[in-house]
């Protein structure tokens, strides 16, 4: 009896869900969906150079540069089907100094989506492809030049630089350049971070022709310092290709939160 009522309720729910969706979405048609990366510092909007922030250890700092790669996007519908963006169109370089770079735009099949997945960084396969396959933001001789290690072939996934009174480096600067796709001939650090975000709590995007849908993410750069390891600028003002970088990557993997969806 109990099972029957549960089954009935479930079926009704299912039917009503179908009823709502069936007439409104055509999954054979693609429409626009964008993901916005809104960089913040705790409860403040991030302001390059002028904003001053402090981390969990009480060290104050400014940010002069914030750039990171996001790639390999996929979107999961409420019915469980997954749309994976064609890989070649799935690389974005978020650069706080370039407002136009802060939004990643896609064409996805119409429908209601509940999960957003991407990686912070560049996958190992693309990192080792022939140079002809590394265009746009991945071009190490162009747009990607500032995010590439020439001496140790590979992309810098995440770059944050600025000044801090706690810094022990020259001119009170700090530099965090995090990269490492796992190595080509030998295993080494892998800082590729897969991110999965549940959108249902703050609003599922409903993608439909004729309107623009936007998933608004907040990316809190304080998480760079505050997390599994509370990171000290005084102790490590410069971190580049170094085992320490994995602590930074573990921390920033937690910086993306879904704020709202504009449907």
């Amino acid at each position, binding site marked *: 009896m109990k099972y029957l009522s549960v089954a009935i309720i479930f079926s009704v729910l299912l039917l009503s869900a179908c009823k709502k969706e069936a007439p409104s979405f055509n999954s054979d048609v693609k429409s626009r969906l964008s993901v916005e990366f809104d960089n913040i510092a705790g409860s403040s909007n991030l302001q390059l150079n002028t904003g001053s922030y402090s981390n969990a250890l009480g060290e104050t700092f400014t940010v002069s540069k914030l750039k990171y790669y996001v790639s390999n996007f996929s979107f999961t519908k409420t019915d469980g089907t997954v749309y994976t963006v064609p890989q070649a169109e799935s690389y974005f370089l978020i650069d706080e100094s370039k407002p136009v770079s802060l939004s990643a735009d896609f064409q996805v099949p119409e429908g209601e989506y509940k999960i957003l997945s991407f990686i912070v960084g560049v996958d190992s396969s693309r990192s080792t492809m*022939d140079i002809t396959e590394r265009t746009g933001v991945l071009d190490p001789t*162009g747009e990607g*030049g500032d995010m590439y290690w020439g001496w140790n*072939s590979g992309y810098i996934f995440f770059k944050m630089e600025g000044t801090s009174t706690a810094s022990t480096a020259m001119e009170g600067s700090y530099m965090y350049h995090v990269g490492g796709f796992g190595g080509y*001939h030998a295993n080494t650090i892998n800082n590729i971070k897969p991110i999965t975000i549940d959108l249902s709590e703050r609003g599922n995007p409903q993608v439909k022709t004729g309107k623009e849908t936007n998933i608004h993410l907040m990316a809190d750069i304080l998480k760079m310092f505050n997390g599994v390891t509370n990171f000290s600028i005084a102790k490590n003002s410069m971190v580049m290709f170094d085992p320490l970088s994995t602590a930074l990557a573990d921390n920033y993997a937690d910086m993306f939160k879904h704020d709202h969806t504009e449907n």
Partner: protein
Amino acid sequence: MRLHRKVAVLFILVVSIVACSKVPSFDLFTPFERPSYFPEPGYRLEANPVTKDGFELGKKLFYDPSLSADNTISCGSCHIQTAAFTQHGHSVSHGIKDRLGTRNSQPIMNLAWNTSFLWDGGVFDLDLQPIAPITNHLEMDNTMEEVLKKLNGNASYRDQFRKAFGSEEITGTLFLKALSQFMVMCVSSNAKYDSMRRGEVSFTEAEQAGYVTFREKCNSCHKEPLFTDHSFRNNGLSISAVDDKGRFNITLNESDKYKFRVPTLRNLSFTPPYMHDGRLLDLEGVLAHYATGIIQTPNLDEALKLGIQLTITEKTNLLIFLKTLDDRSFITDKRFSE
């Protein structure tokens, strides 16, 4: 039937004579060729087939000092053909404004077979290699953006890129592909050793004896016919003030500390000084290092724990054998000259 065959032979003869007379007498380009006893190249030639126009463009870029920030240093400044494309006589390379690096410049030779580049193997694709010296502060101290701007502003380069790749715009990708075309063509396979392998000559008694010693005591790392096994090893050098950790800088694995690429032994006579930092001035010094100079540092290669002991005769013959790896035609080949 027999008459037909004779006519056919005659026809081919006539045609080939006519054809030959049309070929310019001074044509420097010959296509890339793998010597029969070399393994398959590691470089993806099918993704960048070498053409005459591409090769010549690559050569022009290789010798162009405008790739450096102040137009003073070209690739050819530290990779000099007469020194088998190394910087003869310099322990470490001299870059822009005479800034000193920490490592000895490596030869541009048989790179189509290399599996990685630089002393620590930090670069895994020949196409990506030129970015390292061009952007290194101590070497050419430039940016790729600046290089491409200069090249795109030059009509003769635009014309050459169009000829080689059919593109008016000079992109970083095409720039790197052109340089690779020049570099993969720098094949050294005309030493006496190669003639011996092809059965054209025989070794003298001393060379043969040296070859036997080589195979007994050196071949496990300096593997024929490229005279390197492309691995990274710690060969027992003392740790210098620079404390260069070599391969460790790339992998961050403790087991790679103080390991460096096993260099080729081809054209050894033209490439002193030796070792990653050029600390040993001659081959006697190198053999003395392996005999009595090995320092027990972390990750010292198993094969070198006891050093390599040679009798005086073995040493003499080994040095005679090593001379058979000198390829004079390579270091004077006009195709590669500035």
